[in-house]
């Protein structure tokens, strides 16, 4: 009996260790399964990719037909963050399209997540995504209005808000892509998804490139020459393609995983 004491205690300790390690492993599996069931971010990727593609007609520039005469619209643009700076004669409806597309897309995404939660039984905490996108969109509308308005002397400090403008990022009319990018980064945090984080970072890179550089220059180097009217289109189609490819890839991977599971 005396010899059995330490051995029995050691055996009991091993069993306890085994069951505790097993319990931890079980919780990891539950967490992984719940996360996989909850993920539904392919939808906003595809949706905003399609909305970006649908914006293409608004980016076709209205170049004056009179030879040798180009005009730049005079007067201050009312919605500069949404594209009224871009091009020679910027399309009138581009800013309105983007405001409607961002807010409509956000509403559709919320409805999608609500439907998905009812279907699988797990709800994603997507509030951070909603708040981030709404705040950025509203700020992008309000900030220019506040900072360029004419005020009585005691209110002129509001013109100082001009320092908050994001510089060259608004010049090509692709600032909405950056709002989408920040929203996706917030969504990646809410979804706790490494894959979406990688997608959001790659997309942010594409959106920054589209905002700061004429992508048509790259196409010109490989022999594809765009006309003046269409030269903004590569800047729109690059981020759109990233979103569509990522969304389609995520959906395909999800279906494959479900088939093999």
């Amino acid at each position, binding site marked *: 009996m005396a010899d059995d004491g330490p051995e029995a205690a050691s055996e009991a300790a091993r069993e306890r260790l085994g069951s505790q390690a097993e319990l931890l492993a079980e919780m990891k599996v539950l*967490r992984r399964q719940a996360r996989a069931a909850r993920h539904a971010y392919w939808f906003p990727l595809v949706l905003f990719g399609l909305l970006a593609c649908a914006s293409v007609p608004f980016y076709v520039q209205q170049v004056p037909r009179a030879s040798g005469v180009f005009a730049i619209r005079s007067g201050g643009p009312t919605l500069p963050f949404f594209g009224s700076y871009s091009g020679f004669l910027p399309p009138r409806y581009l800013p309105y399209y983007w405001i409607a597309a961002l807010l409509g897309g956000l509403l559709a995404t919320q409805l999608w997540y609500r439907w998905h939660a009812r279907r699988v039984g797990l709800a994603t905490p997507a509030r951070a995504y909603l708040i981030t996108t709404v705040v950025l969109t509203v700020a992008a509308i309000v900030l220019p209005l506040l900072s360029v308005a004419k005020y009585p002397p005691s209110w002129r400090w509001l013109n100082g808000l001009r320092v908050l403008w994001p510089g060259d990022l608004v010049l090509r009319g692709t600032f909405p892509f950056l709002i989408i990018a920040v929203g996706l980064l917030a969504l990646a945090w809410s979804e706790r998804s490494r894959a979406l984080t990688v997608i959001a970072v790659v997309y942010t890179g594409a959106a920054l490139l589209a905002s700061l550089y004429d992508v048509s220059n790259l196409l010109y180097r490989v022999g594809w020459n765009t006309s003046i009217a269409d030269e903004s289109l590569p800047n729109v189609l690059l981020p759109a393609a990233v979103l569509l490819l990522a969304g389609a890839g995520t959906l395909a991977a999800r279906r494959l995983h479900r088939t093999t599971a």
Partner: protein
Amino acid sequence: MTAPEPGPPDAAPEARPPGPAPPEPAQAERADEHPTNGLDETVHQRHRLGILTITAEARQAEFGYLREALGLTPGNLSRHLTVLEEAGMVEVEKGYAGRRPRTWVRITGQGRKALARELGTLTELVRRHGAGAGG
């Protein structure tokens, strides 16, 4: 499935070697405290720990998902939820989706803390014992 009961500390307290003065009593207590002392009976039960783990992953989890994921009968799950609800670790919200009744479970801040503490304790126990077995 039954929950593993937290056992007594495996190692007997060692005699203090000669050397510098012992730390303050509260400090010494903390240092010698075995991780099993940190296990919470309410949370340590396997299914209740599962409920907290799943609900911590989502804004809220539906009763049906929890029942299926944990392999429980509705009655069993209800009992575990009642225990957790009474302990203030989850909130249960009943509603309808169309005509179908739906019950949603949401983890509270207290539940999140308890879950983090429990998982930390379990990890520490496995680490300690694993290191002991390895060495």
